[in-house]
């Protein structure tokens, strides 16, 4: 459907502004620099993977996804340009699809490249695959949730940070039951399932569970976003 | 123009009304005594001013005077109106040529000059949680009014713009109309000699706009403050401005008193509810060339209007045509603007 393609091509530049790209790449470069320094100080592979998991999956992936995805629909609402997509003879699900695709199109290179380099720096191919798997799961899940969040509140960035730092950082770490609701459990799970036992969570969820939950997150976010588009007041 | 204490010995280059010792007080005297190159009564005069932003030339060799009273600054979008206001406030200097505002050169006397100029910007945003009274008082203090004077005059200014009761309310709780009045109050509170208004009626509905225009007219006449008003709505400028400066792609197409600029083609027009052809025919019989457009009769003449007026009246009376509107042909400001800028 070229309508979806046209909208996606329009959202990408609105989302990937120069300032955001540079800031995210800087953070990625810093993580890699630390990885290199740790490597030169001949830290063990498990240490390196642990650092990659800590830096990558708890800071870098969610933060980058947050900054980019909240803007895909959020910037349209804030700039009051959503009307040029919304008041058209097309189903609103096409707008949700376009915003998700735009987010993924920007985030895939922006996340997987630095994380791949970090994985290589650990020097262990299993760790590399684990890191990439974890990042991919994180990328897909966070993108769909934060794209939806961008439509609900103007302060999506603040709420997103709160979720990542408080909920995922603290709460999910302590209580096992809360863990099931935190995306980090599944990104870490994917890391340890694919990358051997380097994951930081004691018994990570089964591979199948990870895929099912991630899929469920994407679908529910998509449905809620479309419902919201249909019922919201557009400026 | 009020007369203050005569300035003590001041720098010869600067007009006598401004003594320059920063730490001490700055004294203002009647500006009439100073010598100036252009017409003595000009509030602002530009001589061969050029200015460009990078490659975009905004002004090329502009020479114009802004006369006392209310002056309309007209120009199509991008003609440099906002840039001109910035130069008058000495926020950016012209690339070449000299500019004189209230007798002083903005390039050298910038800060003292801004002390005597009020500025109401085009945008509507003002600090929402600050009370109108505090905002106006703060701006008056910043323009050099002593503390007690600032308090009394800011309250006066708010009463004069019609915001008496609401002056203690935060600006955020005010309507667009009220916010425009607060902007006007902060521009006049500190007793400026000249105020620059950028699209003051933007966003107002017809009723609010009427009040604002009447207020601006009063400021330019009763309050004795010169007003330079940048606007797109020519009907408004025509209603309240004495003079006009018309800018178009870098040059001044016309400047001076509106009435002097109007080209008065002789002739009269009449709008009739019916019997237009009959009236036209009887006028032609008495030797006038007549143009008819729907229900409007236009009659041109070279000799004075008196005979034509009588002939028109008689033609209408004899044919019993109901007269809705009759007036001498007068170039409206819009026609003047369109002629000057587009020569259409």
């Amino acid at each position, binding site marked *: 459907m070229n309508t979806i393609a046209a909208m996606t091509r329009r959202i990408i530049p609105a989302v990937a502004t120069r300032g955001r790209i540079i800031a995210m790449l800087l953070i990625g470069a810093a993580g890699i620099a630390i990885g290199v320094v740790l490597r030169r100080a001949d830290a063990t592979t498990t240490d390196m993977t642990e650092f990659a998991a800590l830096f990558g999956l708890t800071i870098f992936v969610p933060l980058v996804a947050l900054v980019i995805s909240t803007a895909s629909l959020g910037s349209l609402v804030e700039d009051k340009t959503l009307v040029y997509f919304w*008041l058209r003879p097309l189903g609103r699900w096409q707008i949700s699809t376009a915003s998700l695709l735009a987010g993924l199109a920007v985030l895939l290179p922006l996340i997987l490249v630095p994380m791949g380099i970090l994985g290589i720096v650990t020097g262990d191919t299993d760790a590399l695959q684990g890191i990439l798997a974890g990042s991919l799961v994180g990328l897909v899940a966070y993108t769909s949730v934060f794209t939806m969040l961008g439509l609900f509140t103007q302060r999506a960035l603040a709420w997103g940070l709160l979720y990542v730092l408080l909920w995922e950082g603290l709460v999910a770490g302590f209580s096992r039951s809360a863990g099931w609701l935190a995306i980090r459990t599944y990104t870490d799970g994917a890391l340890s399932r694919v990358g051997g036992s380097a994951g930081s969570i004691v018994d990570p969820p089964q591979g199948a569970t990870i895929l099912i939950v991630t899929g469920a997150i994407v679908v529910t976010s998509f449905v809620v976003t479309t419902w919201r588009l249909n019922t919201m007041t557009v400026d | 123009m009020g007369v203050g204490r005569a300035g003590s010995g001041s720098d010869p280059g600067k007009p006598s009304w401004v003594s320059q010792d920063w730490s001490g007080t700055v004294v203002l005297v009647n500006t009439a005594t100073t010598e100036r190159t252009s017409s003595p009564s000009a509030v602002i005069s530009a001589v061969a001013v050029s200015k460009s932003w990078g490659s975009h030339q905004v002004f090329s060799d502009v020479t114009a005077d802004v006369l006392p009273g209310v002056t309309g600054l007209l120009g199509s979008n*991008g003609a440099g109106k906002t840039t001109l206001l910035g130069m008058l406030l000495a926020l950016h200097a012209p690339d070449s040529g000299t500019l004189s505002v209230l007798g002083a050169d903005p390039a050298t006397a910038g800060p003292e000059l801004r002390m005597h100029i009020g500025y109401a910007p085009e945008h509507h945003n003002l600090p929402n949680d600050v009370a109108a009274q505090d905002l106006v008082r703060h701006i008056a203090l910043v323009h050099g009014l002593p503390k007690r004077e600032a308090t009394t005059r800011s309250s006066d200014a708010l009463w004069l713009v019609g915001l008496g009761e609401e002056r203690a309310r935060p600006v955020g709780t005010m309507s667009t109309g009220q916010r425009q009045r607060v902007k006007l109050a902060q521009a006049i509170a500190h007793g400026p000699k000249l105020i620059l208004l950028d699209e003051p009626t933007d*966003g107002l509905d017809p009723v609010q706009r009427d009040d604002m225009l009447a207020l601006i007219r009063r400021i330019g006449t009763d309050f004795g403050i010169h007003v330079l008003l940048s606007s797109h709505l020519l009907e408004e400028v025509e209603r309240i401005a004495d003079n006009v400066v018309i800018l178009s792609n870098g040059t001044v197409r016309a400047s001076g008193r509106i009435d002097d600029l109007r080209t008065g083609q002789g002739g009269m027009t009449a709008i009739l509810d019916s019997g237009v052809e009959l009236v036209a025919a009887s006028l032609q019989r008495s030797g006038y060339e007549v143009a008819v457009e729907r229900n409007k009769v236009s009659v041109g003449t070279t000799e004075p209007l008196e005979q034509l*007026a009588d002939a028109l*009246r008689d033609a209408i*009376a004899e044919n019993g045509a109901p007269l*809705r509107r009759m007036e001498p042909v007068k170039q409206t400001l819009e026609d003047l603007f369109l002629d000057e800028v*587009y020569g259409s």
Partner: protein
Amino acid sequence: MTNVPPPPPIPSQVPPPPAPHASPTSSAYVAQPAPPAPPLPRQRADNEVLAVTNLSKWFGDVVAVSDISFGLGPGVTALLGPNGAGKSTTLRMIAGLAAPSQGTVEVFGADPRKDKDVRGRIGIVPQQESLFQEQRAIEFVALAGVLNGLMDPTGRAREVLEIVELDPADTRPISSYSKGMRQRVKVAQALIHKPELLLLDEPLTGLDPRQRLHMTQLIRSLGEAGVCVVVSSHVLDEVERLGSRVMVIAQGRLAAQGDFHEIRALMDDRPHRIRVRSSNARTLGGVLLTGSGIAGLTVVDGESLIVDTDDAATFRGTIAAVAQAADVRLLEVQPLDDDLESVFKYLVGR
């Protein structure tokens, strides 16, 4: 031009005794206490494009629009009203951007918020200036074409850009455009799919005189071409030039609709005020007073008279003859309150 039969005129009341030289600012136009006529069902014209019935909207307990009903066909309608009267809320509900709290909006019989096909027949020029800044004009307008499912969006985009006098080959981004040019880009994107209902929210603000002239001519020609155009605006002089029907909304209610001259004529509790400049004001004044229908008369100076008359038609018919008889030269006859601005002010209570 508009063949929608105007709603039944308000049953004419017995004109109250002429108010003693009522100045326009004294009393709001309050419908006189008419005998309670049964509410007539609104007749629906066959070519009705837009039907609004009992539309209301409130934000919390603030009522923005209360119980407005009207129907519009092809032609231009100017939506007028003071700030905060519910004008742009009404326009946004017509476009389907905002959901009504009560009542229905039907465009070609369908609800624009729900029916995706009818949205293809609506074009909107929003008030806000923001567009996709980095895009070129041709890209932005072509995007609207694609989203409307046009076969040749870029070709059609070139056409509409030329209609609004913008250069399709211009490679500069929209962010570098002036306010007037941006306004025209917005109009182009609203015209690309040949909408049958076109909504313009304050299209004239920020335009300089020449651009305003062109925009008015464009709107007028669209109306004559059979598009149902609804324009909300504050620039009454331009709206008057549109020569369109007007709809005035005050305090969230529909105050009046129709041709503004006819609305003025309906205000029979307001005498017509006319300024007459002549060679001898006092003589003319004396003679006029002997005639009938003069409610009030003010001598401004030796030449100017301000006349308040209840019977404007007779006054117009006789003024020339009266002046001729009294051998007074007529220099100017200016009606002061039958322009749109005065009608607006009388309706809105000032």
